[in-house]
């Protein structure tokens, strides 16, 4: 399985770096280690040999991975390895970047995402996304939450009220804001804003929830609340989450994928990835002994 070109390795590097990561850095294709348990789950999203280029620079290399339904899947990896790129490819936000080219495909519950006949707007309505930095819209809290319904033309006040309350409760924000729904969302604290963005993402009951480092701008208390929230969302929603925090990944996720320089290195149940990974590189990364 390992690449045979370890001859190039710098002799001073530690033993566990000798193999795959070095090979990857040298531009050599390496296979991904995907644990058997992953394949046993019912997938909500299937990523199928997906490549992506920013201009002439390839950012994703042949990623293939199924995302299990109603589970939390965490994407970990060093900065710049393509986690956000992968996440943004799922709801085709990368279409907005002019220089992006892709090959391969993804399927959401069996429907091709990158097929030319796919209606991107319909597709995005089936997913919710939360960004690294909270990005509430410049409008009231209420309007923020029901935004997805508004753009669908929903006018019925009863429906909107109900969705607003359900989503805010779902995002563990209802009690804090229920008396000030008409206030500007920009007046909330950072943690509240991020939970508001989560409420906004789950308002339309998406099939997949994409979270890109949802806690990176938050203090420990707000982080704790968001983590609790992710725990509660499991079982209702399928969550694909990027994180830099290994404790967070081990606490909140069911499956963990380790990426490096645009490649999927190892993917399996979180307990296995953190306790007995197949690759020593993975172990080094998740225990913090890496680079």
């Amino acid at each position: 399985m390992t690449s045979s070109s370890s001859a190039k390795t710098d002799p001073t590097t530690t033993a566990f770096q000798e193999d795959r990561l070095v090979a990857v850095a040298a531009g050599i294709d390496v296979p991904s280690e995907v644990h058997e348990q992953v394949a046993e789950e019912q997938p909500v999203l299937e990523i199928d040999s997906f490549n992506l280029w920013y201009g002439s620079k390839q950012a994703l290399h042949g990623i293939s991975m199924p995302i299990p339904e109603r589970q939390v899947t965490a994407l970990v990896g060093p900065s710049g390895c393509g986690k956000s790129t992968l996440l943004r490819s799922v709801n085709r936000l990368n279409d907005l970047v002019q220089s992006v080219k892709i090959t391969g495909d993804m399927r959401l519950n069996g429907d091709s995402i990158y097929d030319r006949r796919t209606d991107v707007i319909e597709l995005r309505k089936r997913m919710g996304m939360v960004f690294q930095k909270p990005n509430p819209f410049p409008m009231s809290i209420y309007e923020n939450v029901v935004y997805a319904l508004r753009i669908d033309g929903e006018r019925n006040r009863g429906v909107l009220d109900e969705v607003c309350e359900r989503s805010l409760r779902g995002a563990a924000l209802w009690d804090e804001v229920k008396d000030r729904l008409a206030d500007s969302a920009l007046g909330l604290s950072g943690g509240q804003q991020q939970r508001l963005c989560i409420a906004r993402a789950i308002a339309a009951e998406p099939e997949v929830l994409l979270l890109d480092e949802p806690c990176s701008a938050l203090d420990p208390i707000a982080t704790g609340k968001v983590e609790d929230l992710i725990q509660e969302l499991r079982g209702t929603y399928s969550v694909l989450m990027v994180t830099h925090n290994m404790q967070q990944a081990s606490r909140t996720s069911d499956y963990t994928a380790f990426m490096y320089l645009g490649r999927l290195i190892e993917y399996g149940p979180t307990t296995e990835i953190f306790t007995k990974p197949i690759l020593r590189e993975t172990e080094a990364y998740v225990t913090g002994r890496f680079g």
Partner: protein
Amino acid sequence: MNSDTAPRRRSSRRRVRSSYTNLAAHGEPWVWLTAGSLGTALAMIIGLLLFITARGLATFWPLPLERVQLADGRALLGEVTDREQQVDESSGETVSQRLIRTANYELTGQHYQWIDDADIIAFAKPDWATAVERLEGGRFHGTPQYFYKDGDVVATGPAATWQEFLEIHPAVRQRAAEAKSIDRHERGHVQRELRAARLAVAQAELDFGVESPEHASAMAAEADVQERAAEEMQRFDEQTATLRDENARYEIGFLTADGTDVRMPVGEVVRGWQPNMLTWPGKLAVYLDRWQEFLTDDPREANSAGGVFPAIWGTVAMTLIMAIFVAPFGVLAALYLREYASSGPITSAVRIAINNLAGVPSIVYGAFGLGFFCYVVGAGIDDLFFEASLVADNQPVFGTGGLLWASLTLALLTLPVVIVATEEALASVPNSMREGSYACGAGKWQTIRRIVLPRALPGIMTGLILAMARGAGEVAPLMLVGVKKLASELPIDGVFPFIHPEREFMHLAYLIYDVGFQSPNSQAAQPMVFTITFLLVAIIAVLNIAAIWIRGRLRRRFETQQF
């Protein structure tokens, strides 16, 4: 560093030196330079505004009337408006002079005179020295002496005469106003009817030909109207003649400083006051009365006296109409450039072209406005809808300058400002907001309408404010597309269809040019120029403050709380 210095000393010296950061690194000179530039700019702007405000506000304040007796036997009565020290070139002595507003133009041929202090042998401030504003002929300074009724003297002496004047004057002014109103409104109404009948004949001729029964009936109707109009005009003549005859019965006689007897009808007097006797509240009353006339009345005497109401109206209306046109156009154009057009050489070229448009001299826009709006669009409208007017009166309706064309021309002129500001405002909307919206399944237009535009609105408003400030102060293009020295009718009045965007109008900025530089007696009009300038600046300020207030309200909605 010197090589033969002992190492120990060297290191200690280095330590001492390094404890001071050099001046350039601290950046103090840059602070001084930048602060100095800002200070100079501010001082100039504030100085200019203070100057305009002081001169503009002082115009209507009643100054004391001084009677000066000159060595050559002449005597003058007037306001001292300026003093000056001059060095006589031959003798090297300083000569002080004063500028006296002597008024009485029909007697002296001058409004102002420079007098050497050395020539003055006596000063006085006579109690009954009176300043009079007249309907025609400018100011008059003198002492009231006689009051005439039906040609007979009914009062002599200043006190009795003025008493009589004050009793009669309001009624006389009232009658004059009535006569004016008859001339203006009722006669105007009849004239409009006549014109409508004439146009109906021309229209019938155009539509059905000269021989047609329609034409004949229109001719009959016109004859009918003409007959009625002649009767009514006769009636108006009689009414105004009665009013004017009644007014002509009263006259007031003044003695000027050098003893000339001047008799004038009471109806000619707008107002009079004795500044030397007035107390502070009295002066204030005169001051406010003159301001009220200035703000609410029509101009008199080639705009150099009276009010500027039509010009205020024209300025405000033109600026607002301009804003209404330029805002949507500019915003839509900027939206396309920033949100839809893919970036490339063409987009860049368009952007550069727009920036350059902002630098085109405004008179070029005026010429374009005249050539395109008036002569092409306006003439086209006339051909389609107002043919009868062209035939019957040989008078274009939309085919000449007017409020609408002037507003459109200025909208064009200020378009680049709005586009550039809007583009910047759109660019400053964080991409994360757009992405958030797309991720919720919003389309492009939905994202623009619900997220981008509201966020950019304060910035767009800033552009609009700049555009309005620029547009309201432009003169050159307006001279070509509809601003007039004197426009008798406002573009909005009680006559159907109430709004007449094709009418010519007056504008404060043009009035400054006209009164200050085109007027036959620019010296007499000079105080007025300052007041008009002050008013124009004040109006632009008010328009801007209103826009800034609206922007502030919008911005408060999007206030971000830091965390």
